[in-house]
């Protein structure tokens, strides 16, 4: 099922040329995108140019790497030189970066074929992709449902077979949640394993770039490629844990898989059952299931929102209509221009989070909110350290529910925030987490489970995920859309 390796084989064997392959993806995008709204910017010229370079190499009999010529996509918060990068916000309309994000630099140097930039919640703030200035991305399994968020465009494109894989970003679940909703694999790497340079920041201490793919081995291949130290990102150490691909198929007999009871609280029954079903698959594979408590998790969500919004309020201060992006048409003086530009350029959810972040950092509230949240962050990190004394990997649901119908998420902010309850602890603690499909609800919507690893323990969680995929291939599905391989 390894889509990347399948494409690689096709290209190497000459079954089709890279240009033909790319063209078929572009054709499918044209057909599917009006309904999926996965892409906000398709880049056929770029894609064909890269494809032709690969064909040239093949024609010359040169060897090509695994990712060469594989059509893919980037979330629209990853900077692409000369190609509009908007974070799906009005305030960045027309902005064309003058540099490439490090991850894109790496993939470009490997002749990745970028088909275009994909949809997301505005500035990655949301869980349904519906805060996008360009409207939400739809779920390829059922287009009455959202693709999830914030990397909804990537998961919609990958699930809908209009990209072989994509890179998203995950601040509080933005890779894993939409992957779970769309029935694909999403890896949020350890904080500091992938360079953030060129990722337009939402919350700097939580953001991390990772792959959304059709299979576990694809996630492994892409992660191994993009995880490298970067002298432009002080917080990036690279792939400290080593390559994940070689150990994917390792025996997991004796592996201790932990389940924290708190993760199962408040989770819909069908989701809980699917996760517990997966635990049984693991037992059958020889792993040992260990139950424990992680009571501190009940504070994870407020801690996450305080820290994320505080950092966001600072990160988003720079959008002032002077250096790039949108600028208001009529104003009276510089201060007025900045306020108007920001008020007109940001959507409601972004403004709400900026205001909340400003509030928790402001004089008189800093200690009660931001400082306290930072302290609790330390406590949560330690709680995970202790948990990993009892187990190798933690198994949890990715989201307490399946993809909601469109329009459902926008009403109540706090209710929407609650959908992040299973994903945010990983970001707070900087740990790796991968969402893997583990079943369907009664309406056929995918359910995802999450495997959480120790810091820089990507190899271990991908190993566990791969073994599950091998044992339960029926949980992975294709949709009616897109390129058939």
């Amino acid at each position, binding site marked *: 099922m390894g889509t990347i390796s399948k494409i690689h084989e096709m290209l190497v064997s000459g079954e089709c040329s890279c240009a033909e392959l790319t063209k078929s993806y572009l054709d499918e995008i044209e057909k599917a995108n009006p309904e999926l709204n996965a892409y906000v910017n398709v880049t056929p010229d770029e894609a064909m140019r890269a494809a032709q370079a690969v064909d040239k190499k093949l024609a010359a009999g040169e060897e090509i790497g695994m990712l060469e010529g594989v059509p893919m996509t980037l979330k629209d918060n990853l900077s692409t030189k000369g190609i509009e990068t908007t974070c799906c916000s009005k305030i960045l309309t027309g902005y064309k970066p003058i540099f490439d994000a490090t991850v894109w630099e790496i993939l470009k140097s490997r002749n990745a074929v970028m088909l275009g930039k994909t949809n997301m919640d505005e500035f990655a703030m949301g869980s349904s992709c519906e805060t996008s200035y360009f409207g939400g991305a739809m779920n390829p399994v059922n287009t009455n449902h959202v693709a999830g968020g914030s990397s909804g465009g990537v998961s919609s494109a990958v699930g809908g077979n209009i990209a072989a894989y994509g890179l998203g970003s995950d601040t509080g679940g933005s890779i894993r949640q939409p992957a779970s909703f769309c029935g694909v694999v999403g890896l949020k790497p350890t904080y500091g394993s992938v360079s953030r340079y060129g990722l337009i920041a939402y919350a700097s201490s939580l953001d991390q770039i990772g792959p959304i793919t059709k299979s576990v081995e694809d996630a492994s291949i892409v992660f191994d490629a993009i995880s490298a130290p970067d002298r432009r990102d002080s917080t990036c150490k690279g792939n400290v844990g080593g390559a994940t691909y070689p150990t994917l198929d390792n025996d997991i007999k004796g592996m201790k898989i932990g389940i924290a009871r708190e993760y199962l609280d408040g989770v819909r029954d069908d989701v809980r059952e699917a996760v517990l079903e997966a635990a049984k698959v693991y037992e059958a594979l020889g792993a040992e299931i260990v139950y424990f408590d992680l009571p501190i998790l009940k504070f994870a969500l*407020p801690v996450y929102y305080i820290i994320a919004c505080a950092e966001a309020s600072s990160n988003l201060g720079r959008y002032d209509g002077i250096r*790039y992006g949108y600028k208001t048409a009529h104003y009276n003086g510089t201060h007025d221009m900045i306020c108007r530009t920001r*008020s007109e350029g940001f959507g409601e959810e972004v403004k709400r989070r900026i205001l909340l972040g400003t509030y928790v950092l402001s004089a008189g509230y800093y200690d009660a909110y931001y400082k306290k949240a930072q302290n609790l962050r*330390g406590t949560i990190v330690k709680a995970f350290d202790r948990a990993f004394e009892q187990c190798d990997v933690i198994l949890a649901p990715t989201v307490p529910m399946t993809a909601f119908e469109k329009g459902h998420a926008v009403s109540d902010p706090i209710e929407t925030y609650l959908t992040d309850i299973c994903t945010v602890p990983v970001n707070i603690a*900087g740990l790796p987490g991968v969402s893997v499909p583990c079943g369907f609800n009664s309406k056929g919507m995918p359910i995802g489970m999450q495997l959480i690893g120790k810091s820089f323990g990507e190899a271990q969680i991908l190993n566990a995920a791969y073994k599950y995929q091998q044992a339960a291939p029926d949980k992975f599905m294709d949709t009616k859309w897109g390129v058939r391989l």
Partner: protein
Amino acid sequence: MVTREDVENIALLSKLFVPEEELDSLTQSMQEIINFADEINKADADEEGFDNINNLSNVFHEDEVVESYPVEEILKNAPEQAEDHFLVRNRE
């Protein structure tokens, strides 16, 4: 308690305009989110707090000049520019 004045103040700090008619509903909504954030005060937190996620230290760049970008590139995305400067035109 989040007050209207609080919201006005943070809006000013955030450089965002809040229309008078939205002030009450926004104050209300902020209050709800703050109530939710207040949950954390029920927790006992370690006092030593949190440094950075991987406890990294001493990451530096060396003091060697790398050529800057051409000014056209720097100004490429500016909504307005003049004489190689970013410009905020305030004349009507």
